[in-house]
């Protein structure tokens, strides 16, 4: 075996080991953070915590209304953000040609970099101030605006990765373009689009700043979409910046609940979009 071969094999082994180490490090980082959260919060996790409303300090209380609130906000924002984001992705990948599509892509990229608080203030200015009250709807819209660029970009990238032969085959069979896109290309890229959707959902599940001026927060279970609504992140934020250890523990427990929620949604979506072809 020539020396250069040995070098090449050695490099290969080195690099593959390195990638394994990277993954190990990332997983360890997550486990370290998770362990810290669990250590500080597991004591407060019980049925009452999951179903009760917040109570003053010293009286226990829970995040039941915040869990429901977060789910409601998620539904509203995903209901607005996912379709719009996927549509933009489809436009950029399948339909857009020329200068306009370049401009749209550029602008969507720029949207990813806006601090979430700026989005929140924007929605505050266009929805809350005219309506003269805070609302769950405003919160959902703010979160949707954060979701759309993520979903759009990942959808576009995933759609672009679908081989042209699939499109050509469907077109050759006489299907119109919309049928090809909806029936062939999108399902082929489904798991990739799901990744984008999951990333976006995970991202907005952890967002606090945009909700502070739109959905606001509440001590009660939600009754209407036109009123302020509680959410896990705002509740975690309020508890985390308070002076009391008891509330801090509740903040960590709420974080565990939040992450379980996101994990659950992740698993469900992955299950539903799993490819049966491989």
């Amino acid at each position, binding site marked *: 075996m020539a020396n250069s071969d040995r070098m*090449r094999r050695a490099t*290969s082994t080195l690099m*593959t080991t*390195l*990638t394994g180490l990277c*993954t190990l490090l*990332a997983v360890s*980082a*997550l486990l370290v*953070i998770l362990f*810290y959260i669990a250590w500080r919060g597991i004591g407060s996790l019980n049925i009452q915590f999951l179903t009760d409303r917040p109570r003053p300090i010293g009286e226990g209380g829970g995040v039941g209304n915040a869990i429901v609130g977060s789910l409601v906000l998620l539904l509203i924002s995903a209901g607005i953000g996912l379709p*719009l984001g996927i*549509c*933009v992705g489809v*436009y950029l990948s399948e*339909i857009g040609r020329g200068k*306009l599509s370049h401009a*749209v892509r550029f*602008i*969507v*990229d*720029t949207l*990813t*970099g*806006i*601090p*979430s*608080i*700026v989005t929140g*203030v*924007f929605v505050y200015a266009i929805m809350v101030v005219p309506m003269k009250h805070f609302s769950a709807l405003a919160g959902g819209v703010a979160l949707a*605006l954060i979701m759309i660029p993520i979903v759009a*970009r*990942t959808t576009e*990238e995933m759609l*672009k*990765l*679908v*081989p*042209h*032969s699939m499109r050509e085959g469907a077109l050759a069979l006489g299907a119109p*373009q*919309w049928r090809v896109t909806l029936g062939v290309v999108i399902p082929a890229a489904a798991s990739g689009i799901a*990744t984008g959707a*999951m*990333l976006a959902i*995970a*991202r907005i*599940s*952890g967002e*606090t*700043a945009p909700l502070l001026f739109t959905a606001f927060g509440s001590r009660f279970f939600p009754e209407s979409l036109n009123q302020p609504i509680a959410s896990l992140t705002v509740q*975690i934020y309020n508890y985390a910046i308070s002076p009391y250890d008891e509330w801090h523990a509740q903040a*960590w427990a709420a*974080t565990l609940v939040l*992450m379980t929620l*996101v*994990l659950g949604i*992740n*698993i469900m979506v992955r299950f539903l979009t799993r490819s049966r072809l491989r």
Partner: protein
Amino acid sequence: MSAVSEKFGAYSTWRRAISPTGNTGDAVFRFLMLLVALLMVGIVLAMVIALASESMLSLRQFGFSFLTSRDWNPVKGEFGALPFLWGTIASSIIALLISVPFSIGIAIFLVEQAPRYIARPVGFLVELLAAIPSVVYGVWGIFVLAPILRNYVEPGLAKWFSWIPLFSGSITGYGLLTGGIILAIMVTPIISAVVRDVLAAVPGSQREAALALGATKWEMIRVVLVNGVPGITGAVILGLGRALGETMAVTMVIGNRPEISLSLFEPSYTIASAIANEFTEATGDLYLSALVELGLILFLVTFVVNGFARLLVWNVTRQTGGVGRAA
């Protein structure tokens, strides 16, 4: 075209322009997609216009010197963006420098090397990092990361490398380095998840061809990577977007000091943190206007960086002759 319009009328011409195939379903479909895309453009333009009009006061007052001034004194009415610009760009660069190699490494491992029963759950775990609320990252940073940096990492770096200005300065554990590391952790799940899907979509024929030519595993992976450069760039841009706009976690560990220093250990301040910290308490129109102008500058920074990234991708794909996706 004029013969067509003569024969079929203006409506037909318009419809042909919208849908080359002439199919009504297509016309509706394409029109809808275009509408949504234009809606997004409209929203972004509305945001930019809103930002620009709110910052008119500050723009008129300070003009270009806003970008070069280092003073940030709300009480006296002097505002300058340079320290925040520095903090934002520096912390994002640090975050990407740390995160991109790691993310790509993770993606490679999960796609090329790990067996399915490992890749799936580990993939979930890494994505889960994206769901941790930023305030939790911030508190973890204060109580775990900052002490580690203050007691072990920064003194170690200072001992060996203090002659580089990057590693001089007072060691408190709160500064650019801490902010950059936290951002790196927050950005990694985004980049690695997207790169994972990009690599997974590279056709198997590319891999088989490389291996058939006698490539080692690593060389085969390199071929796959080159295939995926545009997608990887897209992933990095998404990650950069998160890094530039991240507020809560960064502001809790970066020290929030509007000063420029070459040292990684010294406190710093990012645009997003400044806006989040001072927006609600901003008294006075000039103060508010200056903060809004900061937001506008961040918008422009994202714009410029994205432009560079696009140029880079175009260059690379031009040289490699693009990627054929015939298979």
